């Protein structure tokens, strides 16, 4: 049903918007916010979104439901004054060293302070001795409490996406802080490193731990060779940092840009996504045949792996033994490239991976993914970090001429590219598993029920008939949803055989390392569309039909799940349940 109300004198329509703020924004008006995130519950903490309503006075638009006939004014003297005071008070005890802040230029506090012309703060600056220590202990995320404005977005993201609440409010009044349990280090608690907390943080209080300098050092070292790989979902988001539309596939331009940046070899994680499917589909069929350790859990998402290791170690036998695509490609590069290129050895070759994900940084330093005392993936950068490197090198992605990536891992299939969207891994696995079992060609390969994401991140399911065996596939994103499937499994109610879990809402396209987009609910869908579009246009759309994959098995890996494949492509997990009272829980 459509109703109308008045915004700044203009008659505006609305339908089912949950609050006035959405109505205001959908009608092309703008109101500043810090704590409001469309994908999280309303909180009403920051009071920046105040509007004046005739007959009702000042109201926070994010917590007020729309009513027909309301006369709303978004920009009155009173609202401006309130917002300015809010800004001034927030800045009063804020660490205002903007130039050295990681969020500088993207910080919402900085932006509104500038827009509202805050050029003098009447209150005394916080004394240096009152600054709280910066928490650097987490492999993916840096927490600087001195930049926190207590908007609670991170607390809600952790609770509502991951059901996990590693971060919480502590104390009361002026002593309130956002911190892990009892002020412990973020590296010592059961954080899964998904980075959604820093993705929704409006200021520099939570930021990505950057590894840019380590990559420059590798590139600049003449004795070291560098290979780079980039994940499927990076190509449909990186363009946003250079003024392109979300979902626009920039892979060709990205290849060219990475070469200009100084990487010696440019590979694509899509190749190893195909490799993952070869191994995982084979593993899945084996388990189906034997009827053991079902359902099979996908293991591509490091936050999900960490979640199982810390919360449900009893279910680790369900987890696929396949490394993630990042984890697979790095050792394959180091083992195979020296056979093709002179001057390259396993020792002088360094692999940098570019991921949409902060948890991949933690994955890369897992003990199981080390060989000869060195991490197989030497450095992990996020989409945001590579954008910054390109900008600092003066490379404009928007105008560069596209190039292809390097052999011998040059080709990839549509099945690989959809890994970046929630449902993609399961869809790709089924395409291949079906043909592995039946030796017949699967005609309709678009599994539409597994695609897309709704606001509640509800589980998606599809059933496929593999020669009389009905296989049910379930796809969930966010660990909160995954926990529900785990419950079903523990209660013996699970009727699915394959469970794909991605910790970030909507999958990797919405990963914690992607360009900031937390004010736009639609963006993950647009990026996912970019991937499905590429899938539909590629000549090969099933992983096992990738000619370079076939060649790699022929020349090097023999066959899926072979001894050699196990050495390079599979891994183990460990029980990381910390508390001594486990049998009581």
């Amino acid at each position, binding site marked *: 049903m459509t109703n109308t109300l008045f915004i700044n004198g203009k008659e505006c329509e609305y339908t089912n918007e949950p609050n006035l703020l959405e109505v205001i924004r959908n009608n092309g008006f703008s109101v500043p916010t810090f704590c409001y995130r469309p994908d999280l519950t309303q909180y009403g903490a920051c009071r920046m979104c105040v509007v004046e309503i005739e007959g009702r006075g000042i109201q926070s638009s994010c917590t007020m439901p729309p009513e027909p006939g309301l006369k709303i004014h978004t920009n009155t003297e009173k609202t401006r004054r309130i917002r300015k005071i809010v800004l001034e008070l927030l800045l009063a005890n804020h660490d205002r060293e903007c130039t050295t802040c990681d969020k500088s230029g993207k910080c919402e506090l900085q932006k509104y302070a500038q827009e509202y012309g805050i050029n003098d703060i009447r209150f005394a600056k916080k004394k240096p001795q009152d600054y709280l220590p910066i928490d650097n202990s987490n492999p993916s995320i840096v927490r600087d409490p001195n930049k926190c404005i207590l908007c609670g977005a991170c607390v809600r993201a952790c*609770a509502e996406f991951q059901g*996990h*609440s*590693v*971060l*919480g*409010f*502590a*104390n*009361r009044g002026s002593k309130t802080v956002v*911190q*892990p*349990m*009892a002020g412990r280090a973020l590296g010592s*608690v059961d954080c899964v490193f998904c980075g959604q907390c820093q993705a929704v943080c409006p200021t520099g209080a939570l930021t990505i731990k950057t590894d840019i300098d380590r990559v420059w050092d590798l590139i600049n070292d003449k004795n070291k060779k560098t290979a780079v790989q980039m994940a499927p979902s990076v190509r449909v988001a990186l363009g946003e940092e250079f003024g392109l539309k979300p979902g626009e596939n920039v892979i060709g331009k990205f290849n060219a840009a990475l070469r200009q940046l100084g990487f010696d070899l440019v590979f694509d994680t899509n190749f190893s996504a195909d490799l993952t499917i070869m191994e995982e589909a084979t593993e899945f069929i084996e388990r189906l045949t034997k009827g053991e350790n079902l359902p099979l859990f996908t293991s591509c998402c490091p936050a999900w792996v960490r979640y199982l290791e810390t919360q449900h170690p009893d279910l680790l036998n369900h987890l696929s033994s396949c490394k993630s695509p990042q984890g697979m490609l790095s050792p394959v590069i180091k083992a195979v490239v020296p056979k093709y290129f002179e001057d390259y050895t396993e020792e002088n070759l360094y692999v940098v991976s570019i991921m949409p994900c902060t948890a991949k940084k933690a994955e890369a330093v897992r003990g199981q993914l080390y060989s000869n005392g060195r991490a197989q993936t030497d450095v992990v950068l996020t989409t945001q970090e590579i954008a910054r490197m390109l900008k600092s090198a003066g490379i404009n992605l928007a105008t560069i001429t596209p190039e292809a990536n390097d052999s011998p891992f040059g080709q990839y299939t549509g099945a690989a590219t959809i890994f970046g969207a929630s449902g993609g891994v399961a869809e790709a696995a089924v395409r291949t598993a079906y043909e592995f079992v039946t030796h017949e060609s699967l005609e309709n390969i678009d599994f539409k029920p597994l695609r897309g994401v709704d606001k509640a991140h509800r589980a998606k399911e599809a059933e496929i008939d593999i020669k009389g065996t009905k296989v049910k596939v379930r796809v969930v994103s966010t660990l909160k949803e995954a926990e529900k499937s785990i419950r079903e499994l523990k209660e013996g109610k699970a009727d699915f055989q394959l469970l794909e879990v991605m910790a970030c809402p909507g999958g990797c396209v919405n990963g914690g390392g992607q360009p900031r987009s937390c004010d736009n609910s639609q963006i993950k869908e647009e990026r996912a569309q970019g991937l499905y579009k590429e899938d539909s246009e590629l000549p090969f759309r099933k992983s096992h039909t990738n000619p370079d994959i076939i060649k790699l098995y022929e020349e090097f890996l023999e066959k899926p799940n072979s001894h050699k494949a196990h050495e390079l492509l599979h891994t183990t997990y460990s029980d990381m349940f910390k*508390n*001594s*009272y486990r*049998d*009581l*829980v």
Partner: protein
Amino acid sequence: MSTQTSGGINFKKVNDIIDSCGAKKSNLIAILQKVQDEFKYLPQDAITYIGTKIDGLSPATVYGVATFYAQFSLEPKGKYEIKCCDGTACHVRGSMPVYTYLMQRFNLKEGKYTSDDGMFSVETVSCLGACGLAPVVVINGKVYPQMTSDAIKIIIDTIVAQENEG
């Protein structure tokens, strides 16, 4: 079922309290109160346990609740719990000199409310409803009316003397 202890905490007891109240998010305050009654404070391990055991809660969330309410203490209380009323009536009739005396006597400061020997802990409360007796101090449930810093000195001296004899 294990009754392992960690840091001296008997998890079985915490578990029994949770069971008796019902392992529900909405029962958290009651659970914390009973755990505090049991241990005289809220040990971190107990908070972690409660946060892990109850659906919809986490250690960080439980810690947030425990630090929000003044009734909960995260450090062990002394053998003698001294509550110094600082409600309006007590305040205007001179509760602060009494409180200041106690803090100095036991070498306490903000953030440290229990004496090193674990005998005394001092806290302010906001009104005991005995304003006619202001300023009021309560030690282990016993009410001491119309306190001054001299009077409280005598009371504490007496307790210390008793302790030394016994």
